């Protein structure tokens, strides 16, 4: 073997080693990305509680308020309704907002219409902004507690009965309650 090709062989095995090293380094990068993706869950919850992104309400029935009505201030609650893809419904609040005293019980109606000809089930997912008020929105009765099923073409009025807990921080004067209806699996009969 000539000297030249010997040198080339050494160069090529050096390169192979370097490739392996860099490849392994990249695996660390991947491991970091996996760790990051797991950390995103607590991070998301943290972000939600700090910024009030996607304020979560207590999604179970509260008992009727024993709390006294706080007549000294008024809070406006705005309503939004949307439908996720795959669910052939129209869905909207029948009144866009309501102004009430904390502690006062109110009922608002949402209307859903199945615009297809088949029976479809949906599940409403709430979100409240600003997030710091979310826990103070107490629902007594809500269509979001269970799946809702509409026959083809059916129109249904869906009531929401709620009150604002007087413990609501005083700086919150306007709240928005948004419901997104997601497609859900129908109960097998």
């Amino acid at each position, binding site marked *: 073997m000539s000297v030249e090709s010997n040198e*080339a062989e050494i160069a090529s095995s050096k390169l192979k080693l370097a490739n392996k090293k860099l*490849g392994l380094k990249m695996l660390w990068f991947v491991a970091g*990305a996996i760790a990051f993706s797991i950390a995103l869950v607590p991070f998301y919850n943290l972000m939600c509680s700090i910024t009030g*992104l996607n304020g979560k309400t207590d999604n179970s029935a509260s008992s009727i308020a024993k709390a006294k009505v706080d007549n000294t201030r008024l809070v406006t609650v705005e309503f939004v309704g949307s439908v996720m*893809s795959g669910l052939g419904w129209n869905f909207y609040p029948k009144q866009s907002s309501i102004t009430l005293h904390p502690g006062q019980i109110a009922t608002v109606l949402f209307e859903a219409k199945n615009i297809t000809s088949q029976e479809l089930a949906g599940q409403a997912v709430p979100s409240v902004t600003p997030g710091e008020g979310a826990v103070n929105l107490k629902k007594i009765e809500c269509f979001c507690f269970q799946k809702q099923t509409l026959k083809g073409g059916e129109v249904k009025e869906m009531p929401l009965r709620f009150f604002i807990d007087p413990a609501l921080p005083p700086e919150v004067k306007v709240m928005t309650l948004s419901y997104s209806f997601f497609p859900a699996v129908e109960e097998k009969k």
Partner: protein
Amino acid sequence: MSTTTITHDEEHHDHPTGIMRWLTTTNHKDIGTMYLTFSLIMFLVGGAMVLGIRAELFQPGLQLMKPEFYNQLIGVHALIMIFSALMPAATGFANWMIPLQIGAPDMALPRLNNWGFWLLPPSAILLTLPFTLALFGIGDGAIATGWTFYPPLSVQGGIGVDFAIFAVHLLGISSVMGSINIIVTLFNMRAPGMTLMKMPMFAWGWLITAFLLVATIPVLAGAVTMLLTDRHFGTHFFSAAGGGDPIMFQHLFWFFGHPEVYILLLPVWGFIPQILQTFSRKPMYGYKAQVYSLWAIGALSVVVWAHHFFTAGMPVPALLYFMYSTMAISLPLAVLFFCWIKTMWRGSMTFETPMLFAVGWIILFGIGGLTGLVLADVAADAQYHNSYFVVAHFHYTLFAGGIMGIMAGVYYWLPKMTGHMYNEKLGKVHFWLTAIAFNMTFIPQFFLGLAGMPRRIPDYAIQFTEFNEISTIAAFALGFSQLLFVYNIVMCVKGGKKATDKVWEGAVGLEWTLSSPPPYHSFTEQPTVN
């Protein structure tokens, strides 16, 4: 020009023949060919599925299939087109062309490369098997959530969801392997003298893509794994009843999903300028500006994800942030468009098939980008979200911007890969049929969306009938035109006029210095770049 000698890899010396050659190959061209072939087959499979969808939408009401089956077709069509057609096509080109373009003898990690490919066929089987199982009464078919896996449907759905989750795991591992290989190749294997800022644009596009993949695929894998544990192991990441949050899934999914759309396109943004430069016979305009724009888009793409669910309930500051950051992406994108057009400006242009596709691509992808800007507007999106407008938007970006871009690349490099010229006349006919049928399919969908037709629903109100009929007829024309493409490729592989080494008069780059087809071991004499 000096040369450095590189010895052959030992393992390459005796290559097996027949099926064993393909199962065990570590040759970058063989692997590239397998990726491209796989991609073409899956493109036809995904296309056949969508013709079923369009046939159902020809008339209002339900004629051909049950809504459940319709939803399964939609979801599997999208997963196949994204993960089994578009991504493998880009990876196939990477395998074929990156070593040739940077003057390397092969990819850096050949064995990893082989594994990366062979994960794909099982994943394709996992995606499509539930259809067959359902015929035998096992399970109730494939995943029916669309490609986005949104809970609660994906938590409640049948075994099709599990199959899709495992398919995504395999696809994810495969793309991460492919990406690592590309990164290592680009960092370690460039010919002497080729600095990073002298790399061909295609290599740049892929380098950024590879980093995006390595960073975001684990997030997707993590999110679908959480779905899996929610489904079978009693966790409550995403179920509101157990204290979880379905909206969190959307955040995780789109943290991957938005970068994914750039993952699909960055490789195309790499080679389109090379095609434009070849057929304009003048140097690429604004090389540096393009590289920086690619980086800017790659970086911005990971901070805009929530524009996919503006309507899910978000505080106003968050809405504004995601709106403006999304719109900001169009600035570097505009720089790219400017450079592409300026590259052609006053060039002595000819319009062979690759150039036709490249120029058509600029226009059609431009429409995709502009309609994306419309959707990025929070107030407008409240109306357009979940409507056919979104469907039309992302087909202008993914079919025109992705698939038609890939086709430009196929025609551009096919003579180099096979050593034969394809049939030019047939190529041009294919372009015009594709471009016309594509527009006829998707322009009506913009109007349907504006008029309020929701997406992912098999049935619709009768006032939408005419536009749906036009769209369906054109979709069939679009589908069948692709048979010309397949025919042209097959004939070109089999024979045809011999291609010269340079193939195109204006071609620049190291790949054109090799013979057509290139020898089994490319660049045994490593070139030096000045």
